[in-house]
């Protein structure tokens, strides 16, 4: 059974098999619409499939929200080089824990999405790059891959056609930066996870400098539903330009945290109050991180907002990876800022100076603040340092560190000033689950 109860307000499209007996087995999958989208795809041209994806308004679920159909169309299908399908299962943006469930409870859905991708771009090999900590998922995925070979869904000349496709799992070994697509490809090739300069993008020169279709687990897992329902019906689930459903990972100070599937455009306050069962201990809401710790947080009064890429972008934040972190009125935002920066400083790969030095100095300044030794000038300096990182780093990890810091220092400046005036505060004892 998944780790939390489903909620009636959910719209379960890609999580609908969660909780079925043996949900990870190919028999359960086949008995519940499994591999029907592949059948349909094999009767369509690659262009028709890409059009269907474009119409569906499916956007990348890994972080940036790039339109999936458009990304698939960038892969040069006529290139003489071998082509690869790559699944980003590195899931390590703080607040995010959904790809894990998609692989644990429905591994064949992911495989089917990969197969459709392989058919579209003409790839014969696909890999699933799984973060090292998720060892049990390698076992689950390997078992599913074996079943797919045994039933003729993977192998050479499949379904009486020329379509040949092989899939393997691959493991990382602890590095957030390896979730960044170009660092992931370096790591996949047996190197340090250092980002590559782009262009060329992975679609053109990815794994082994060959055309590579790289998407997040949830993105690939959504592709079968798009083809089964048809692009327009899938788009219809969400709001304009933001099609379908997505997995929200709700955490923090709510009564019933958990992973829930909701349509794009679902109101944020309904997530807090209905799916989350309201704030714990009757506290008031202070802030929400909408989509993983790199997203600028919203103050309580900004939270009356639909959860879709465009609405959150308009509010100068992001839907990101769907990791929604809820904070109550007693949360110490200075400490939150420090904890976020400690993470990005630890995970900066050190390749480019603005990120390596920027995160290090921001961590030092924030530590000084929390220790009660902040200087009046520090508030401005933290903001300036962070702003100077924006857009000046090799990969977006620098932005990921700077954006939440800027938001916190601008929106909760009073808390930094209180530290200056009153000195250090004892760390809050959090309520612990019984």
């Amino acid at each position, binding site marked *: 059974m998944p*780790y*939390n109860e489903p909620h009636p307000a959910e719209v379960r499209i890609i999580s609908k098999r969660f909780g079925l007996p043996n949900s990870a087995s190919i028999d359960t999958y086949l008995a519940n619409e499994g591999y029907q989208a592949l059948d349909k795809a094999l009767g369509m041209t690659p262009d028709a499939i890409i059009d269907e994806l474009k119409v569906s308004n499916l956007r990348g679920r890994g972080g940036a929200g790039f339109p999936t159909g458009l990304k698939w169309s960038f892969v040069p299908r006529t290139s003489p080089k*071998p082509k690869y399908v790559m699944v980003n299962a590195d*899931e*390590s*943006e*703080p*607040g*995010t*824990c959904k*790809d*894990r469930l998609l692989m644990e409870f429905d591994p064949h859905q992911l495989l089917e999405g990969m197969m459709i991708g392989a058919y579209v771009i003409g790839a014969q*090999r696909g890999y699933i790059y799984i*973060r*090292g*900590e*998720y060892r*049990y998922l390698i076992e689950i995925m390997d078992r599913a891959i074996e079943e797919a070979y045994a039933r003729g869904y993977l192998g050479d000349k499949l379904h009486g056609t020329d379509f040949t496709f092989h899939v*393997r799992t*691959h*493991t*990382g*070994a*602890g*590095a*957030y930066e390896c979730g960044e697509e170009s660092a992931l490809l370096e*790591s*996949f*090739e*047996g*190197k*340090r*996870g250092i980002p590559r300069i782009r262009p060329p993008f992975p679609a053109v020169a990815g794994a*082994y400098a060959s055309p590579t279709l790289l998407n997040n687990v949830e993105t690939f897992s959504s592709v079968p539903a798009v083809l089964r329902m048809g692009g327009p019906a899938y788009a219809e689930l969400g709001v304009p330009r933001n099609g379908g459903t997505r997995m929200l*990972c709700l*955490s*923090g*100070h709510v009564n019933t*945290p*958990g*992973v829930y599937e909701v349509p794009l455009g679902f109101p944020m306050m309904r997530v807090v109050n209905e799916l989350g069962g309201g704030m714990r201990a009757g506290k008031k809401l202070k802030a929400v*991180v909408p989509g993983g*710790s790199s997203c600028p947080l919203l103050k309580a009064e900004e939270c009356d907002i639909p959860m879709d890429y465009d609405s959150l972008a308009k509010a100068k934040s992001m839907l990101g990876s769907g*990791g929604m*972190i809820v904070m109550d009125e007693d*949360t110490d935002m200075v*400490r*939150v800022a420090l*904890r*976020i920066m400690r*993470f990005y400083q*630890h*995970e900066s*790969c050190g390749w480019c100076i603005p990120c390596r030095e920027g995160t290090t100095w921001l961590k030092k300044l924030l530590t000084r603040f929390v220790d009660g030794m902040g200087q009046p000038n520090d508030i401005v300096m933290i903001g300036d340092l962070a702003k100077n990182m924006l857009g000046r780093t090799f990969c977006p990890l620098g932005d990921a560190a700077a954006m939440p810091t800027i938001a916190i220092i601008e929106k909760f400046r009073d808390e930094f000033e209180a530290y200056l005036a009153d000195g250090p505060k004892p760390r809050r*004892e*959090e*309520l*612990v*689950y*019984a």
Partner: protein
Amino acid sequence: MTLSPALEAKFQKLLTNYPEGRQRSAMIPMLLFAQDEIGSVTPELIQEVAKRIGTQPLQVEEVMTYYSMLHAKPWGKYHVQICTNVSCMLTGGEQLWEHACEKLGIGHRQATPDGLISLEEVECIGACSWAPAIQVNYDFHHKVTPEKLDQLLDSLRTHAV
């Protein structure tokens, strides 16, 4: 270096996972799977992996030092990893961390003198909705309280006897 039959089979399989001439891709999986069995990334293992994938040992070492899960020094038999990242911090992860340090009398990346238990404060392990979360070796434990942690640590000790 002689590998156990299981590890030898794993290495053979890993080498076939990648296209001809791209065996370097097997480096990180080889190191991690071997470390699980041997306890750490030893100089002999580095030599062995380099030989199998056709690189210099120095290239393996250079890669190995990048990844936080790969380590040259053995950890405890049970490596207890406590997440204190934001979602866990908001639900008591830092309290758990301090509790574990106090109870075991060790700190970050240290092991008990008998080598049984080691501790590490880790970044998000992908269990945020069931926070605070910890991992013991590869096993997840969700919604951990100080009491549950005590029970768990005690059971690791009894297990070992």
